């Protein structure tokens, strides 16, 4: 991999990525400090300073998937729910970054909601993935989860002094292109952020990555730069996505970009193999490639910390 001195933040992010599973990232002023989880577990002072769990990100549950890469996606979601329910301090919120279902079928949504109801944390905020808007009428997702956004798919809310922005980038696809936010959503975002203090921590979540990870597989959002230019003035911006079923991170100034693991099946790294289809791994390795992202509030200095945990 080329080391580009002009892109120090990218270099740093790639270095962080190399730590892989079981790495805890604390985030202060947009700079990651990777700590090996094993070390963090031994040094209680290290984790004690990390503070309260703010929310847990669950992504790409793909309820209804039944192929070789994971014939039991219900089972792995239930293990995920047990993992969250077993946390010593319960998060205030759950955020689901889309692909709740595999085929947008009513039965799949019903089964997913039934399992989500087992979470001890009851407040869940969602954005749809393209698998959730794949029914011919694009109504199944919105009839269940559309209320928060008045069926638009994008909305915002505040919690614990953090401003949360949910964006939808799985509609209005341009043929051959990446995900799209669209002009209506971008003007709404500009209005939503206007007048907010730059010191407000911002968490943005959407299904598809809000930066281009790999264009040939559509891993990106064509007009995300317009959204990022509205967010750049804030002191702490955390951008959380799903879609690619693996952790990829980027730090750019005060902005941290992070994609979560799936709870259903892994996907190949960008451009490895002929297509982004489900990655088949030996059964005993699967749990190491599935998991969640926890976001903690660090009090001093006030910042957000991201922790990735597998269900293994």
């Amino acid at each position: 991999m080329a080391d580009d001195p002009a892109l120090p933040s990218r270099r740093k992010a790639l270095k962080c990525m190399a730590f892989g599973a079981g790495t805890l990232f604390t985030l202060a002023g947009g700079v990651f400090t990777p700590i090996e989880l094993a070390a963090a577990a031994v040094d209680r002072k290290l984790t004690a300073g990390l503070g309260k769990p703010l929310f847990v990100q669950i992504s790409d549950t793909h309820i209804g998937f039944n192929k070789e890469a994971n014939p039991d996606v219900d089972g792995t979601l239930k293990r995920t729910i047990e993992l969250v329910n077993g946390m010593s301090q319960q998060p205030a919120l759950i955020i689901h970054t889309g692909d709740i279902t595999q085929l947008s079928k009513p039965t799949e949504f019903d089964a997913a909601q039934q399992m989500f109801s087992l979470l001890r944390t009851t407040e869940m905020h969602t954005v749809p993935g393209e698998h959730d808007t794949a029914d011919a009428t694009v109504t199944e997702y919105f009839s269940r989860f559309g209320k928060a956004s008045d069926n638009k798919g994008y909305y915002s809310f505040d919690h614990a002094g953090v401003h949360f922005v949910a964006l939808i980038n799985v509609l209005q696809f341009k043929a051959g292109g990446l995900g799209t936010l669209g002009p209506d959503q971008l003007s709404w975002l500009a209005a939503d952020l206007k007048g907010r203090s730059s010191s407000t921590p911002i968490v943005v979540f959407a299904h598809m990555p809000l930066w281009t990870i790999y264009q040939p597989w559509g891993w990106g959002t064509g007009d995300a730069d317009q959204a990022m230019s509205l967010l750049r003035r804030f002191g702490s911006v955390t951008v959380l996505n799903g879609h690619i079923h693996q952790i990829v991170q980027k730090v750019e100034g005060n902005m941290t970009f992070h994609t979560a693991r799936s709870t259903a099946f892994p996907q190949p790294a960008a451009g490895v193999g002929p297509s982004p289809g489900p990655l088949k791994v030996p059964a005993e390795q699967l749990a190491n490639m599935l998991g969640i992202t926890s976001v903690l509030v660090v009090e001093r200095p006030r910042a957000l910390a991201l922790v990735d945990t597998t269900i293994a």
Partner: protein
Amino acid sequence: MNKYRSWFAATAVALLGWSATWDAAAQTADPPRIVVKNFMFQPMSLTVKAGSTVIWTNMDEEPHTVVSSSGQFRSNALDTKDSFSFKFDKPGTYSFVCSIHPQMVGTIIVQ
């Protein structure tokens, strides 16, 4: 001479008959098809006569959709071996995309 003439006539009748049968078979038994495989519509471009019904079949393990870029047709999510069909009545060029993987594109040319 007579012998040659009757041979020619018989051959012509046989050829006409064969050609008529072949045309009928092409129209009824073998509708135009597009297969979805390895995240690609195959063929990517298909030319059909007005009034033809095109059938798309997903042969991938991953679901795909068939969505008209101008909104004329839209399938549900197609699981492995599921099909979708649409009848093209009017001549024109119809582009379509998989809404799950919009890098997958195709075109139907109706003559």
